[in-house]
């Protein structure tokens, strides 16, 4: 923690340099997909018929719209996930320093408080019946 605060500019410079290669690879990937789709356009036949363009519904004519109302049964999981994931993100910066000299015991206690919060949250959800199917 202390080291990174001392020379912030140097750290940031190296950081972005290594990500430029990631950017280049992303360009390569996009080119690959573009070439594949372009070549595919030249290779394949195009014979659209109304039946072919019909939405697939087991061979019968589609009933209603595809974007039908759906009961999203998993939305509580989505809440749980957001809460947990946001918490977990903070684990990573903490993980790199927690055993550094001078931190040891204090950070360990912190960790158990953190885990305690998560566990209580999970137990609460469990008790409320969120994790069981109805």
């Amino acid at each position, binding site marked *: 923690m202390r080291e990174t605060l001392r020379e912030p500019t140097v750290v940031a410079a190296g950081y972005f340099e290594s990500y430029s290669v990631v950017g280049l690879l992303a360009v390569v990937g996009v080119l690959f*997909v573009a070439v594949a789709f372009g070549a595919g356009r030249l290779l394949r036949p195009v014979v659209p018929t109304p039946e*072919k363009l019909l939405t*697939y519904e087991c061979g019968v004519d589609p009933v209603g719209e595809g974007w039908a109302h759906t009961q999203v049964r998993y939305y509580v999981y989505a809440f749980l996930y957001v809460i947990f994931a946001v918490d*977990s993100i903070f684990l990573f910066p903490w993980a*790199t320093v927690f055993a550094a000299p001078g931190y040891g015991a204090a950070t360990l206690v912190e960790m158990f408080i953190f885990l305690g919060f998560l566990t209580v949250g999970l137990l609460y959800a469990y008790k409320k019946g969120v994790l069981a199917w109805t």
Partner: protein
Amino acid sequence: MNDALDVALRLLIVFVVFLTFPLIVGQTEHKVMAHMQGRLGPMYAGGFHGWAQLIADGVKFAQKEDVVPAGADRRIFQLAPAVALLPYLLVLLAIPIGPGEGAVGQVLDAGVFFVLAVMGVGVLGSLMAGWASANKFSLLGGLRTAAQLLSYELPMLLAAASVAMAAGTVSLPGIVDAFEWWWLPWQITGALVFFIAGLAELQRPPFDMPVADSEIIFGAYTEYTGLRFALFLLAEYAGIVVLCGLTTVLFLGGWHGPWGADGLGWVWTLLKTAILAFVVIWLRVTYPRLREDQLQKFSWTLLVPLSLAQIALTGIVKVVIS
């Protein structure tokens, strides 16, 4: 100029690995699955034990008509395969196969973080496909994909955090550098959780509820044909390569082995990755599909608590020994 050449060479190697390794895994799956089920699998294409089956498949896919349903959201529908596939290409760049800067596409300081974040994007492709198809089966599949990502991303993240704690760094080469053999029993719970959660994110059997073919046709990919369908399949197998590579690097010590650590380290990495890929295939043949609710329950009531326990264990051991 030399630098540019170096970067170009690295990108080329990563790209070639990205195009070949998934095919090798796919062909292995054909043959291994067949033999486990008392069949021969592909025998004709290419002459020798059907080695060219996937090339033949590729040629076939490229010639097929590309049908976009009239009711679909055209642009999103056409873009979805690319969104599903490209994240795995980017992740491959960060996975080290040997010691030193020479054996990794690019050393990223925030390796674990980068890798997990980018892998999450791949699922977006399935979601886009599921929504844009304007098909009820696709929509169901897309929603199941989303629910599955929500449940399994968390244990995966926590398990990876445990390794980052053990190594004291989030850089992938840094983690393998710090690896000792006794990490294996120490991190075994985390390793299992990571691997299983990864399988679920790839929607591989037994976690293939979102694409359950006997139930919702092929989930989000129901309406896809030809090349775009092939790209979705390629994404799945690229995902297997990435998951096995990551599990190797994070939990199995990457290039460390009983002998030959200098010079032959990359052989260890590839060997471990290959064995894990075999396990992925094996699991597909062995286990029946989990029902949607079983799938959710498995993650929240088993994997998440286990990964939390692993973090506690890692924390205590690390503080005691340092």
